[in-house]
């Protein structure tokens, strides 16, 4: 079979043995050294670094997310090989910006880093996709798009994932989305009965990702833009 080489976690020399964190302070504590390194590398694109409950969050400029993540992934002194999660947070306070969250892990250095990018209210919800660096971001970003309507530029196939593609009620995890949905039960039922599930078996649908450029303009706009209801 293939001659695999086992990748050892925590293989960087001189790492202390990991222990269960105890009595973690609410704020402050040991800062992940990557925060400093990021500041040195990217300067103004890096905002403040918070340590909350022992976890370091670094604020970054949303537009440069891909570049920053690529450096964290590629640079041997950082070596963040593993993308745990991509998600977003919208706060109950309407004035507070939406936060994009990336949870990264360095297997080699046993580090955990949270990157945050703030998207001001009213600004277009767009961030660069990190899919070119982490293939695992594919579905995570699709889910984030599905739930928040955040567009990931450069994502190869940004479609709804948990909800169906014709879903027109908006983006459920936005705070202005009511818990029971936007449409009445009668309307939801009517739409469900009118849906044509067979439409999703077509060869055209299967080839969307490949033949995106050849699609008619309106279809491209529909796929690229997603639904606008709820914005």
């Amino acid at each position, binding site marked *: *079979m*293939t001659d*695999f*080489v*086992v*990748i050892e*976690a*925590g293989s960087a020399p001189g790492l202390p*043995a*990991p*222990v*269960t964190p*105890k*009595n*973690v302070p*609410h*704020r402050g504590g040991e800062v992940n050294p990557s925060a400093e390194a990021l500041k040195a590398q990217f300067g103004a694109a890096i905002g403040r670094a918070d340590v*909350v*409950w022992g*976890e370091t*969050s670094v604020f970054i400029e949303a537009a440069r997310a891909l570049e920053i993540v690529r450096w964290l992934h590629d640079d041997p002194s950082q070596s963040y*090989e*593993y*993308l*745990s*999660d991509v*998600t977003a*947070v*919208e*706060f*109950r*306070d309407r004035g507070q910006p939406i936060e994009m*969250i990336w*949870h990264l*892990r360095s*297997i080699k250095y*046993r580090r*955990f880093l*949270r990157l945050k990018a703030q998207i001001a209210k009213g600004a277009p919800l767009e961030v660069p996709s990190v899919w070119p660096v*982490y*293939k*695992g*971001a*594919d*579905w*995570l970003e699709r*889910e984030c798009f599905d*739930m928040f309507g955040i567009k990931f530029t450069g994502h190869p196939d940004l479609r*709804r*994932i*948990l*909800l*169906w593609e014709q879903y027109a009620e908006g983006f*459920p*995890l936005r705070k202005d989305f009511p*818990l029971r949905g936007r449409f009445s039960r009668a309307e939801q039922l009517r739409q469900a009965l009118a849906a044509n599930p067979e439409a*999703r*078996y077509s*060869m055209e649908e*299967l080839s969307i990702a490949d033949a995106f450029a050849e699609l008619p303009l309106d279809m491209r706009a529909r796929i690229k833009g997603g639904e606008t209801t709820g914005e």
Partner: protein
Amino acid sequence: MTTKRTIEVELSTSGLGHDGRPQRIPLVVGDSGGVALQAPPALEPDLEGEHMLINIGPQHPATHGVLRLVLELDGETVVRCIPHIGYLHCGFEKIGEYRQYNQIIPWTDRDDYLNCIGNNIAFSLGAERLFGIEITPRCTVLRVIGMELSRISSHLVWMGTTGIDIGAFTPFLWSFQERENIYNLLEGWVGARLTTTASRVGGMAADIPDGWLDGLRGFLRSFPKTLDECDRMLTRNAIWTGRTVGLGVMSPEEALNYGLSGPMLRASGVDYDVRKDFPYLDYETYDFEVPVGVNGDVYDRYLVRMEEMRQSVRIIEQAMVRLPDGPVNVDDPRVILPPKHKATSEMESMIHHFKNVMEGPRPPIGETYVAVEAPKGEKGYYMVSDGTAKPVRWRIRPPSFVNLAAIPKMVEGHLLSDVIAINASIDIVMGEIDR
């Protein structure tokens, strides 16, 4: 010369070639014995434009829930696989924003419903970090026992259902018998079998009853024997190896890049286990090994899970020995309810109980991402608090969701029947994927 059995094994599809392209299935055996790599592609005529679409699921027993796979086939070879998910979506994360922390715990039962107690504990760990609570030593050890029992029971379901998918019925019966024992134990502990809701913020729903450890000892005596029987039944079985070896290969770099976790990642040769590398519940003080595969195929995932069950038994044995006396719940009136007899007889306790239940405990402003090593992989709960009794955001990082995202990559170039084996090897739970 290669032996007959080796050729049989090699005849199963071998996944991706050296150039990263899916390999076709050779129709004849070459002279060299290393058939799969040398077979010229012309052996299989390319029926251009004659691809067939086939739909599997969402109601197919081999999809382990309501997963729907649309496959584009060239003959019997998968050219492309498009998974459709979301049939079980019920908005857990949205609902969580309208619930207090302790009220969310029943929802964690329902996300990965084969690992309920593990999810309960993972969520409680996150909430306790958010509250700044240190749990008691007895609670820590009890939680380790709960998590490892739940890992065993989840892996047993995996082994049984995968056996059925591939054609072995007997291990299913044996594994479900042992799983039944685990559920009996859980029923004795918290009163529920499947959806346990076993933990609370700051402790557990209940301490273990008298004599419970004897039942656990009994289970630990019988279970390794059953596991050995399954091992004898499957590990060297020619049909089993023929249908699993060399399937759905992921290299270590690919597996990391796709964000795979748990047995999927370790079978691909990445020695990453949250229990060892980012420990919680004092896992660093237990003596156990983390099995790592070397081929990254379905067979290695099977071997890794089998060994993990054995290691879980070791952990439980150590935990039973060290289980200290003392309280299970922390002495923190912010989160812990007063005893029932006091709540029904003393005014102050009743008010305390009322306010804790109706208004709910409030963590300080903050956020935390707590990950545990669930049977399926790295299960993370990310919670953001704005100082109120309900989280602003409760995010589940579902390991099977991320693992399943790699299935188009894993099945390409394999036979249709191998899709079932590969899908089974991911160990998906649709409740967790769709949430």
